[in-house]
Each structure stands twice: as structure tokens, then as C-alpha cells.
């Protein structure tokens, strides 16, 4: 009388093994979409002063709050990447699995980098490899050791790529299964890993950067190489560009752009401004359309004086428009790579200083070309004033590079926050609300409360290594500026 029990207890709506491509698609999509949207924009994005934030997102006013969801989402992405490797177990040297495993590993490294960049030390080396043997508690590895390991792993993963192997095909949103393009992604990621260590471990930074720069053809070499996930407008909110989803489902109080971004674009007379931002309601009413950004981290007294119709949101005909052609989300772009190359060139790492301006301009040109701007020609005046390196010190050149990267990374909040912290450019003035930081811009995110409660001893050990405890003001290892 128990013979049908096994059949009865077989889950009817799920399976125990699966084509890993389906899992890979999900990871690429979720991992890429995670960078933008209402909360990242108004948390990290208000610290980097792309977005104004507001009282309903207290962390935008420097009030501490743990980033539980970010933490959990990253480990969940890593869980699914580990499952891919379990599904492909035994095929490590076989063309049917070898390059697929390498691609999953390369993408995983980019997720690890994002996680450690935001928090500092995180559990890394001792975490669960197989659900049959769960590591309930894992020590936090130092960011230094994580970076060392990621760089070594990235080298071996790139070496494992073989152009004739089986790949993910159309399940691969980035490259439709193109292994040569994944090689370019891997090398470009190496460039990013290397430069992040520029001030923390210059020797390792240099060797990593030089290795990545050794063959320019193996880096992203045009917008066609961008790692991007397409979006869809007349679909579910989960399929739309996170910025559009913010407009469609989020709070209207959280749609305002920060003064720093608008002011910089106005200062540059940047042709992207009218495509990026919306003129203020009151300026349009008055017949003189103009753009204005709102201050960040305002005090109660300041906020009570705000008339929102005097400030700009993203453009209602591009970012905030379902009628505009869907804008892809990016994980890594040729522009970013160009800016990294320019920075490396200034250091003489893998290129000469004289190449810096060329790389820089190539990065800006590519950035202009991307949706929603699609500007194919840089105005000559912009080229000669804003983009010219003539007569500038290295620091000034770096500031220009980082400022353009900061504009380019609008909507890519994790990377924008990491790069701003690393080099300190553009120079941002904190808002006036003291919050938990005494009015300083936060330098990291607070660990997950779940992790703190459930992995407490290891959490405490990691917090002990932080200069200012588990606070906004402690700096991660590579943050030396």
C-alpha cells in the first residue's frame, strides 16, 4: 500500500537535473540587471551623485542600513554558477563541457569582484561547493587574498577556452556562444581586476594589467564586443530595462537626478544631456526648458523646501519611455575597457603614456554611440575642449578619464561606486545630512544582517579587521584614496 508513494512524492513542478544553459541564462540576466534599478540607483547611485536619493531611502542620506538583498542575491548567483559546474561535472577536459565551465567561471569571477568591491572581506574560499556537503558557516576571506585568487583563476579559465568547443549558444545573452568574445571578456575583466589594485598592490596590479594588455586584439575592441543583456518593453516588469522598470513601478519621489551629474553635463555642454535628462516641469511651463539636479543627502530642513517640479528626472523620451527602443543592460563595455587602457597607458603599464588620449577618446566615442544616445559624431568643440589632454598633468588626465567613465556608468551603480572610490574622481561634495557618517560619503556597504546573525563568529572576525567596524566609513582593502 506504499508502492505509489515515491511517484506521489516526486515534485510535480520542478526537475532534479537540467541543461545548464537555462541556468546560465538566468545568471547572466539577473547578474547584469542587478546593477541598476530603483534601489541601487538611489543607494549607491546617490553616493556617486548620479541620483538624488531621498528620505524614503535613508541610506542615500548616509543613514546606515544593511544590504541584505544585495548580499543574498550575489551568493544566490554564485549558487547557480556552482550548479552549472555540478551539471557539467566530469566534462572538465571534454569539448562538451570544458569551455562552458570556463565561461561560467569567468562570469563568476566578475560577480565575486562586484561583491568584494562593495563589502570588503567576504566568505569566498570555504563556501559550499556541492549541496550534498553544505558549509553552513564559512570564514570571511580577506579582499587581498580574494583578488589574488580571482586573478589566478581567471588566467586558468581563459586558458581553458577552446574556440572549437561546445558553448551556450543563444542561451548566452552576451555573446550567443562566441568563445572568442568570451576570451575578450575574460581579458578585459583581468584589466579591471588589475587596475582596481592599483593603489593597494601596485606590483600585482601592474603584472595583471600588463598581461591583459599584451595582445590588444584579445580585449573588447568595439561596441560589438560589449557584454550586454537585451531588454524588452512590452513585457513583464522583470524583462524591462531596470531604469524603465523604476519609472513604471517605483516611487516618483526617487526619480530625480543629482545636481553633480546634471551640472557636469551642463558644464561640458554634453550632447548626451537632453537624451539623458528631462527639463524641469517648471522651466518648461515658464517657456525656458532647462535642466537641474537635486542635492544629495539633504537635511530635513532642506528637503522641506524642495519643489520637485524644479528638478530633472531621466528623460521621459529615452530612459523613462516604453516607446523608446529597448535599451540593453551592460556588464562590461568597450568604453570601460578603453578608459582602463587609457589609465594603464598613463602609468606606462602595457602601453605608453602617449596612447592614453587615443584610448580615452575611443572610450568616449564608443560611449556616445551607445543607446539611448546613439551619437556617432562628437561635436568638434567637445573634442577639443572636454576631451583634449593637451597641457594637462597626469592627475588632470586621470580626472578627465574618470569623469567620462562616471558619466558612462550612469545606471551601473556598483562599478561607478567602485571606480569613484578607487581614484577619487570626480571630486564629489557630500550632502549636508550628517546621517551615520558625520556627513561623509559612505565607502562601503554594511554586511547582511542575516549573515551577521547566522555566521556570527566569522562575521565578527571580519569586522575586527575593518578600520571603523561594520560601518559606512570603513574602507575596503583596495580603497586607498
Amino acid at each position: 500500500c506504499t508502492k505509489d508513494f515515491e511517484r506521489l512524492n516526486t515534485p510535480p513542478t520542478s526537475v532534479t537535473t537540467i541543461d545548464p544553459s537555462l541556468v546560465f541564462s538566468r545568471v547572466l540576466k539577473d547578474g547584469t540587471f542587478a546593477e541598476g534599478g530603483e534601489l541601487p540607483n538611489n543607494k549607491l547611485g546617490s553616493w556617486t551623485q548620479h541620483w538624488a536619493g531621498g528620505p524614503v531611502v535613508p541610506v542615500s542620506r548616509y543613514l546606515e542600513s544593511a544590504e541584505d538583498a544585495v548580499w543574498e542575491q550575489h551568493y544566490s548567483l554564485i549558487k547557480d554558477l556552482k550548479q552549472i559546474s555540478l551539471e557539467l561535472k566530469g566534462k572538465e577536459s571534454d569539448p562538451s563541457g570544458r569551455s562552458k565551465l570556463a565561461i561560467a567561471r569567468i562570469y563568476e569571477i566578475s560577480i565575486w569582484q562586484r561583491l568584494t568591491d562593495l563589502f570588503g572581506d567576504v566568505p569566498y574560499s570555504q563556501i559550499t561547493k556541492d549541496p550534498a556537503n553544505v558549509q553552513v558557516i564559512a570564514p570571511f576571506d580577506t579582499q587581498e587574498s580574494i583578488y589574488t585568487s580571482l586573478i589566478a583563476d581567471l588566467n586558468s579559465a581563459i586558458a581553458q577556452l577552446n574556440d572549437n568547443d561546445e558553448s551556450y549558444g543563444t542561451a548566452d545573452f552576451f555573446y550567443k556562444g562566441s568563445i572568442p568574445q568570451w576570451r575578450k571578456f575574460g581579458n578585459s575583466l583581468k584589466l579591471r581586476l588589475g587596475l582596481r589594485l592599483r593603489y593597494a598592490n601596485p606590483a600585482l596590479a601592474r603584472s595583471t594589467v600588463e598581461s591583459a594588455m599584451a595582445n590588444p586584439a584579445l580585449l573588447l575592441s568595439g561596441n560589438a564586443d560589449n557584454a550586454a543583456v537585451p531588454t524588452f518593453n512590452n513585457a513583464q516588469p522583470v524583462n524591462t530595462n531596470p531604469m524603465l522598470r523604476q519609472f513604471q513601478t517605483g516611487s516618483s519621489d526617487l526619480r530625480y537626478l543629482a545636481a553633480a551629474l546634471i551640472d557636469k553635463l551642463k558644464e561640458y555642454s554634453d550632447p548626451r544631456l537632453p537624451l539623458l535628462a528631462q527639463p524641469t516641469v517648471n522651466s518648461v511651463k515658464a517657456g525656458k526648458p532647462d535642466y537641474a539636479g537635486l542635492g544629495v543627502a539633504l537635511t530635513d530642513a532642506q528637503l522641506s523646501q524642495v519643489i520637485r517640479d524644479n528638478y530633472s528626472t531621466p528623460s521621459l523620451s529615452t530612459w523613462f519611455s516604453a516607446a523608446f527602443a529597448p535599451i540593453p543592460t551592460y556588464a562590461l563595455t568597450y568604453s570601460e575597457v578603453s578608459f582602463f587602457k587609457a589609465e594603464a597607458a598613463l602609468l606606462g603599464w602595457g602601453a605608453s603614456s602617449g596612447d592614453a588620449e587615443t584610448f580615452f577618446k575611443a572610450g568616449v566615442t564608443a560611449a556616445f554611440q551607445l543607446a539611448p544616445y546613439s551619437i556617432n559624431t562628437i561635436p568638434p568643440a567637445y573634442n577639443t575642449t572636454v576631451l583634449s589632454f593637451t597641457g594637462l598633468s597626469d592627475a588632470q588626465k586621470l580626472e578627465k578619464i574618470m569623469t567620462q567613465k562616471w558619466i558612462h556608468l550612469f545606471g551601473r551603480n556598483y562599478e561607478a561606486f567602485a571606480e569613484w572610490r578607487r581614484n577619487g574622481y570626480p571630486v564629489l561634495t557630500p550632502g549636508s545630512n550628517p546621517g551615520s557618517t558625520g556627513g561623509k560619503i559612505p565607502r562601503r556597504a554594511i554586511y547582511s544582517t542575516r549573515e551577521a546573525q547566522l555566521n556570527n563568529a566569522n562575521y565578527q572576525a571580519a569586522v575586527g579587521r575593518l578600520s571603523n567596524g561594520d560601518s559606512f566609513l570603513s574602507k575596503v582593502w583596495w580603497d586607498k584614496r
Partner: protein
Amino acid sequence: QTGASVTGVVKDAGGGALPGVSVKIENKDKNFRSNIATNMQGLFSAGGIPPGGGYTFTFTSIGYKTKVLEGYTINLLDKLSIVVTLDEDATKLNDVVITALGIKRNKKALGYSMAELKGNELTQGSEVNVANSLSGKVSGVQVSRASSGSGGSSKVVIRGNNSLIGNSQPLYVVDGVPIDNQNIGAASSSGGTDYGDGISNINPDDIATISVLKGPNAAALYGQRGSNGVILITTKTGTAGKGMNIQVNSDFSVGSALVAPDFQNVYGQGLNGDFTHFRKSDGTIVTMKQALDGGFAGTPKMSGGRDRLTRSSWGPKMEGQPYEDQWGNLLSLTPQSDTYTGFFQNEKQLTNNVSVEGGNEKVNYRLSYANTYVDGYVPTNKLKKNNFNLRTQASITDKFKLDAKLNYIIQDATNRPTLSDASDNPAYLLISQPRSIPMNILGQYKWTAADVAKQLGYSSPVPGLEKTYATNSSTANPFWTINETKNTDRRDRVIGFLRLSYDIEPWLKLSATGGTDFYTDQRLRYRAVNTYQSLNRKGDMSETVIRVREDNFDALLNSNFKIKEDFSVTWNLGASHLSRYLRQTGNTGSQFVVPNLYVINNTLTNSYLFDLVESKINSVYTSGQIGYKDYLFLDLSARNDWSSTLNNNNNSFFYPSASASFIASEAFGMSGKTLRYLKFRGSWAQAGSSGNPYQLTGTYSLDQFSHGGVPLASFTTVIPDKNLKNELTTSIEFGSDLELWGGRLGLGFTLYQASTKKQILDVPIAPSSLFNVMRINAGEIRNRGIELSLNGTPIKTASGFTWKTTFNFNKNVNKVLSLAPGVETFLMGSDRGINVVAQVGRPFGELIGTQFAWLKDENGNRLIDPDTGLPLRSNGRVVERIGNAQPDWLGGFFNSFSYKGFTLNALVDIRQGGMIFSQSNREEIIYGTTNKTVAGRDGSYVASGVVGKKNADGSWSGTGAQNTKSVKAQDYWNMVASDKEVMVSEEMLNDGSYIAMREISLRYQLPAKLMPTSKIKSITLGVYGRNLFYFQRKTDGFSPEASAFNTSNSSIGIESTSLPMLRNIGFNLNIGL
């Protein structure tokens, strides 16, 4: 007609007719046996009796001493008529009670504590959910309810929470057949609707008795689902007698809020004691500061916004000042005392019930129809319930009997309110909106072109759009919600059983029962085009069909014999099969193409919903009792289950029980005047439990939505364990019952301990493990407690005046002894600012504050910053224990006075201890809407605490001096809470203690001489009030016993913008024909 007949009447000592007395007519020589009962007039009649001598009549009735008349001769032509008087049996403990498997037992033979309530001891009047009527009536039973009004769910916990997962609720068994009591799709901390639980469908008028079996000791024979106790409901049956007996019962009640938030009516919308913005005479808008600095002419203007800076009541005193609201209406700033009551309405509830019963000695039947109509507290919320019930019992032959029931329930509900943290919970807006907003202004719930032109602070509104108070979705306009959004649900449910029994020998009976409970729920929700919060403001809808079925089959062999003279033996052997099934299909769609057409294919984007859950349990069990004389009883039981939810190696498990009862008063002949009854009892029992289906394997699931046609999949976040085993609850109890002074005072007490080991737990693990939870057998929770019940008859006069009183008490001490290896904390629920956890070494239901904390000195005094006069708050978030949600003790005090036809009942329900974290309090503080925020708005608020001083290392310590520096009340309360993400968690705690006047009812049964016609046999009139008032309540603005958003463990100790519990006043009329 063949055979002789006999009629008779049964009366009590006072000469009153006794209905429902069982009359057994037997003649061993002629092998004749008949079981009938008296009707409302106390009459019985039996026919078809073989003539002859040797007849025995046995009259039994609960509460009366059994009377046996022997040696009667019945002749064919005689009309034998018997008049019998039964003496009241003051020894209540001799009552026959219904125990597990529906077996009637003499209460004195039970080795464990149980309680039984008669139909007339249940709530007088229209409590839609019968579970609520247990509150305060039985020791060890805690009843709370979801804050969802009539038709909502109730939570019953017996002797404390045993299980970390699930809801620790008992099994409901109706007429021997378990019913489904799921609460499918219940509300969570982030919103949702309470569609009612399974027990709420049962018609209270059909209930004859309710027995409460308090845990595995009493419920071992129900197996795993009995481990949290069993509530046995026995419904009414027809009684044999002359003709039909018709009962008509009508009940009407009106409900209003028992406790509403303590609103202030002094200060209106604004900030810092003033308006925020200003419209100059030229039409342009500036801030108030600019207006004051510039000395402009014009009118103060309000602005829309999501946060307290624009929509709070920290503004000017309401003194009739003219101003323009955020939409452009020109108003005067005046108190609006009806901002809460002006939206809600009195709940009206009408229940009509008709029953027809009758039968003869072979067949009896009872047919009832009940109709319930509730016009809810939230306007447009309606509940209609039709309940048909047919019960029949028949003797096919003398030995072969049939018992069958068919209960058909149709329930239709409209616009059930949304609960907790959801936009369209009406309470959410009404507790936080400015005290100066007139309800008729809020009632203009659609934007007009004029509003659009004059608004301030909104982002691109268009005419026709839902006009929200704030710019954000978190506060929908409740008038829009009730008029432009809709939810309907319909349940069609059939509960039925068929039981056949055969008396193989007079001492051996075989019975077989098949029972089924199946229902279909159809749920539809939509939000019209222009609902602010819907995607692209284009509306959305969902439609769900849920089909649930539970089948129970059992076969039971029951024997009853005596070994020698002094030993009686009862032995049962049974087997049962349970199968459960749930299938859910549905569609959700958003963005309507054509307005006002609410079908899925009218939506631009849509998706499916599918779920299927099935399980089976097979069991065999045996139980037996040996009685020695009339004073020593020993019970033994054993059961083995095979459950489909565990794997082949572990799916069989065994659990036994044993109990004993010793009637010392009989054994030692102590039936003296003072102590006339003394019983000792003890019991030990186990109950296994096998968890939910599909808990063994880790699986991949496909995402609901593909991404541009590319399918997405992910692996579960739960680490499964293939080798899960059953949970095991072990329970032990000892107790005693005694009666003093001729039965005038009865006392019962019980000590118990129950612990559940090897719980099947989804243990939360650190996210760095890559998973959310690990499913393992782990943990042990222990409940220990004492139950006391006292019942007495302080006054009983010859003139017929009686005062009966009952007091019951339960103190339960709960402790989490262990969790999983390496796991010290188990998270049960989590909401803004609060986690509800189980922690090793602490009682279940610890409340952990997760936001800011006050800085305090070593004596617990708050430290006050000498510069600002404000209390000092932790710099970042803290995780600290702030209280526990479990009550210290529960009690009930019941009094009944009767005189002639009048009966006055009063129930006081008591709970002491247990903390509740209130999200409403947080909203009220942020927005300055309640009275506690009024004092000191002019700057004279002095925060309690001691003056702090800053140490060299940056930390603070106290100086010992009391703070005297005064501040603005607004600044103080903004330190307490300024946002749902920024609050001092401990300030939201409320003591959940209460002493409530739960129920007062007055009934009057008209004497026979007052009957208008002889066709009417009885008329009873009643008035009642439920949830009348509190003798003691410590919560701020809500009822402690009805504040949760659901009935699971995840909401223990959390109040979340709840709807008020209602005070019901009603009357009823019962006519017997």
C-alpha cells in the same frame, strides 16, 4: 403494524421536560434492542416491539444519573406509557464525553485532561468562525485572530507552540472525520488577503458539542496531525420522537471598532508647526520660508510627497486658517474628527438558520439550512454563506447501522480587505494621513483637469488617475480601492461521510467510515485602469482556481467485554488511509488593453500560475482499556504510520501512548459530605509527524517568465535531505480532579510537559552557504505548564435561582532547547524593524529589534545629549532582544445566572504578558497623528532620561542628572521614528496583556403559557454583546488579540496597520415548532 408499542415522557426533578435523553429498550431473550431519544417535550415512543416480558429501559442523559427500569412486560394491545424522572448528577465528572475516534467514554475513566463544551456553551450569537468562541473557555487554549474581520481566520494554539514551522494549530475533526483547515494564500508581512480558514465554514448552529483534546495524550489515535491537539466537533443529529421538530433561529448584530487609534485633533498638515509651501497671488508656488522672508501675499499651499516632510501632521494648530491643499482645493485648516470612522462603517451581520429534525426508532434525520450575510466593516466588503447540512442515522437491521452526513457550503465574498504592508490596506492611509484632510476631499478619488493644473509635488498626473494622498504607491486612496478595485472569491465545499457499523456480537462491533472534504475556491482580483500603483497605471488582474480534497477512510473493530466480575476490557483495532490533494491554477495579467473588461486576454502581459501538492498516509492503530471495578483504568494505544512524504527507508514510524486513571473517592469509599470525588490521572504519549510533500529533493525550477523567449531556470534555495525522518512529540501529564460540598465546587489541575524533537526544520543558514535554508531533523522545543480549572455553583435556591461560575487558568513555559548544530537562532518572521525568532535557551517568539536603539546608562536610563536635549541613538543598526511575544498566562472567568426562563452569561477573557511590536505606532509617530505626539510641540517637550556626557573614546555615559532641557515634540518623535527604515525598535513595543469583557448574553425562554399558539413549542429571545470592553489593555490604539495579519508563526508578536477588532451587539430569536 407488527409488534407492540410504548410511549413515555422523561422529566427532571422539577417536572420539566428533558429532551435528548437516550432511551435504550432491550430484551435479551427476544434479542431485541432499540435506541431512541426524547424530543423537545421529553416524549419518546417506540413501536414494532415483540410482545413479552423481560424488557429493560435504560435512560441516559449527560448531566443526569442514569436510570434503569427492569422487568417490564409489553403486551401487544397495551399502550404502555412510562413516566420517568431523572435526577441531576452533580458529579460532572461522571459525564460521558466524546474522545478520539468519536468513542464515547465516561470522563472519569480518562487518564488525561480534556474539555468539552456543549453547543449552548459556545458563543451566543453570530460568531462566524466557531474557533473564536473557544477563547477564554478552556484552559490551555489560546485563541487569536487575524485582523481581517468576519469570515477571517482564527488561530488556536493548545498548550503553547510545539513547532517552529507551520502554525502549531490543532486538527479539526467533525463527526469523526478530519476536515481541511488550510489558509491558502494567507496574508504576509507585505500584504495579502485573508480568505478565511477551513473551520470558518462550519455552521455554529449545527454543533452539538466541542471536545478539546489537548495534545498527543488525548489525540494519539489521530496520529501525526493530532500532535498539536485535536478539536472534535460533534454535530447535531435528529432525535426519534413524534413528528417533526423545527427550529428557526435568527440573529442580527452590529459591529463597530472596539479600539481605534488615539488620534489627535489639534495639529494639521505641515512641518515644524507651519505649512510647507505657499502660492503667491500671481499663482507661482514658493516654499513657506521664502514666502515668510519675502512677505508675499497669497495662501499657504500643501505639497504631495511620499515622506513625512509633506504629508505629516506636524504642521500648524488647526484654527480655521485658509490654505490650498496639494491638489488645489481651497480649504480651511480644521480638525477632521471622522478621518477614520468616516471611511469605515458598522458591520452588519444577519444569520438565519432553519433546522428540521425527526425520526423514529429506525431512522432519524436532521436537515439544516443556514444563511449568513455580512456587510463588512470596510465598505463594499460583503460575505455571503449558505450552508446546507443533512445528517441521517438509520438502523438497517438491528445490528447493521448507517450514519451519513452531507454538508454543502457555498461562500461568496467581495472586497475582502488587504492587510499589513500593502498599498491598498485602507488602515495604512487612514492612520497616517494628515488630521486636517476632510474625508469628502479624499473621497474625490480621481484626478480632474483642475487638480492637475493646481497640484504640487506629483509627477505627471492625468485626469482620471487615482488621486493618492502621497505621490507614492505605498498609500493608495482607500476610496479608489473600494470603488475601482475588486476582489471576489467563491468557495463550493462538500464535507460528507458515510459510516456503516455492524454489531457482530453484542460486545464486538465493526465500523467503516469514508469521509471526504473537497472544495473549489475561485478567486478574482482586479484593479481598474488608472490605479496608481499598477504597471504603467493600466490596471491588472489575477484569477485563481484552487481545488482541495482530503479523503479519510478508516475501519475500526471495537470490542467491549468483562473478564470476571471486576475487570472490564475495551479493545479497538483500526486502520486508516488519508490522502490530500491541492491543485492551483491561475493567470495574472497586467495592463488592460480595453478598460473595464476584466478577462485575462484583455491584458498586455500575462502569466500562468500552477501548483500541485499530493500526499498520502496509511496507518494502523490499536487501543485498549482495562478497568478494574469502577475506579482504576489503564489505557494503552499504539499506532504506525506510513507517509508518502518520507523516503522508503524512513516512511514507516511507530508511536505509543499510555494513560491511567484512579478514582480514589470510589476506591476508598470517600463519598463524604465535603470531598465526594477525587481522581488522579497520568498519561504519557508520543506522536510522530512526517512533514510536507516534496521535501526530500533539491530541484531546478523554471522562472515564470522567459527573457525574450529564452527560458530561465534556477536551483532551489533550500538544501534538501533525502534521509529526513519523522518528527516526534513526547508528552507527559499528571493531574487530579476533585469535587467538594456536594458537587458545588469542582477543581481540576494538570501539569504537563511536551517536547518535540527531530523537528523537520527549514533552518535558516547564512547566505554565504549559497542557500537560504537547510532542511534537517533538528531541534527540540519544550512546553511545560499548568492548567487549573475551577467550577462551582455558589448559589442555588429552591426558587430556581442558580449562579454557576468557572475559572480557568493556564501558564505555559516554553523553551527552545536546541536547534540545528551550529545554529543558535531560527528566524520565523521578519518585518520592518523586527525579527521574530526562536533562540536556543529562550522561549519561542523572541522579538528582536533590527534598527536603532537608545543609548542607555547602566541603570537602563536613556542618555540625553546635553547639546540637543534629544535622546542619543545608536549610530548604526543594532540587533537586540527587546521582548517576547508569548503570554505569561491565560485565563477565563465565566459566570452564568439563571432564574426561571432567564439566563445571563458573562465571560471575561484574560491574557497577561506577551509583547506586540506595532507598525501602526511607527506610522502614527512618523506622521504625528496620535495624541501622544501633541504634548510639547511648542518646544516644551522634555525627554525622559539622564544627561549624557561624551567620553574621550567617543562613547557616552550618564551623569546621573535627570534631563531638563526641552525640545520640540517633533524633533523628539523624529528621533523615535522618521521612516519605516529608521526607528528605535523598542519604542514600538506594546504589552499585549488584556482583561477583556469577551461576552455578555441574556436569554429568555418564554414559558409555555405565553406561547401565542400551540403550534409553537418554544420561543427564546436573546441579546448579546461580544468584545464589549477591556478592564485592562495596554496596547496603543489596537486590540492585542486581533492584530496579526495571518495565523501562522510568522506574524507572532507583530501588529501591522491592522483593521480594528469589532465590538458586536446583537440579538437573536429562536422559535421551536
